């Protein structure tokens, strides 16, 4: 609230990493069956039960829209409308996020569109200490 220099933004989710020139994604990948998970630590694989451990895996930054909803009313204080989307990442897990850059009109949304994963400021949201955050967003790959 005073003249403290702004600290660098923080990742809005544990799978977003800000340790390089560009934000990147990293997921856990089961050493046994290759299934990927979003959380930073696991004891075992939910799919095969293996406890052999996990590798860090960086996926491609593109994917395919699987499902979505155009949200017009949400929890109190949440700005609407926005599009809640589930995207199957190429060479990665499925991820939920905001789909931006498309109209809020189901008739004009290709429900299986190709998207890119981009990073941006978390809509100006700050935590109690005033920290800014970086989040992922989905945008259509096709130029409109």
């Amino acid at each position, binding site marked *: 609230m005073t003249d403290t220099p702004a600290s660098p933004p923080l990742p809005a989710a544990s799978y977003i990493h800000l340790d390089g020139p560009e934000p990147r994604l990293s997921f856990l990948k089961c050493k046994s069956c290759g299934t990927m998970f*979003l959380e930073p630590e696991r004891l075992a694989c*939910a799919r095969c039960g293996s406890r052999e451990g996990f590798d860090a895996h960086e996926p491609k930054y593109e994917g395919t829209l699987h499902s979505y909803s155009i949200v017009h009313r949400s929890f109190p204080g949440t700005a609407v409308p926005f599009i809640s989307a589930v995207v199957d990442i190429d060479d990665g897990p499925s991820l*939920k996020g905001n789909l931006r850059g498309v109209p809020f009109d189901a008739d004009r949304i290709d429900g299986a569109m190709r998207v890119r994963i981009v990073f941006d400021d978390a809509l100006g949201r700050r935590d109690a200490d005033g920290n800014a955050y970086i989040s992922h967003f989905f945008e259509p790959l096709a130029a409109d």
Partner: protein
Amino acid sequence: MSDVYITGIEMIAFGRYPHRTPASLGAEAVLGALDDAGITVHDVQTAYCGCVFQTMVGQKIFQQIGQTGIPIANVSNACATGATAVREAWMAVRTGDYDIALAVGVEQMTGMGMLGAARQASIPIEGLMGSTSMPATFAEAGREYAAKYGTSFAQFAKVSVKNHHHATMNPKAVLRKETPLEMVMEAEMIAYPNTKLMCSINVDGAAAVVLMSEKKVRELGLMDRAIRIRASALASDPWQQRNPQMPDINSATQIAAQRAYEMAGIEAKDLDLVELHDCFATAELLHYENLQLCGAGEANDMIDSGATALGGRIPVNVSGGLLSKGHPIGATGVANLYELSLHLRGQAGERQVEGARMGLAHVVGLGTCSAVHILEKA
């Protein structure tokens, strides 16, 4: 192992009871179920209570109606809570350990809003990383089905038209009015394609059921009013790639349904009515297929043709469903058994499914689990 029968069952009228407690609502349902079975609290040997938002409600209920010292356990399993309590009571009788068991489900939800609760994080992620609201979650589940089979907004909306129509014949439902298609589609859009009239209603409610062993049913001469539990199945979400980023409401239902059909030794075509988990209109169509009421992609035709309306091939949610009856989470999975029981006894009034002998009740608890019960007129 004993066959298990329902001999007493009650559901209080769902609604808003801001000046009462969960224990008071639950006690009213329990007393109704005991009266229905013609027994007293002293006959109950064990009890299971389902409630999500309050603790130790089972004991609090017996503190209202008679503290007899019996074993009471409280269970919580999201929206499958009530059905899970019934299943615990069913197992207690089925194993032969108890002859009379009680299950009760109750929830007080007035003022909680229909959207669910926001997850706490260092910054709120709602509207930043999509939505975790219940209307949006089930909208996405519906959109997934629509992407495969071309289900239209109007077809989803017809579920509300049908269920609200059914509820006009149910005095215990909280919403009892006709909602024509245009009214449903033009209602406030919450999360496309779910409008406000396509979302279930948070209300207060309770329902209770008395279960007995075959030996006890015969001893008390209750077989003429008894309902046999042909199957009680519970399943949890198997691994699935998009779950839980996109909660999988289908797989657990499919597994529970298959287990229930196998346990009962019947097929979906043998059913006369179904009460399924229509927490949002988008969910109902998915469950037609998950419960094997139709083949892949045929849910659109089911709703268009009226096959699932009262008088149709397989009536679904003739109670009005959660969309009109209301959805007091802990009570819901007992209340749908109450509806089936009314029909199997021929006591459902103007919404009676004629000649009903076999019914299926289904719930989904997000997180995720599903319970399916199959009941038969004894």
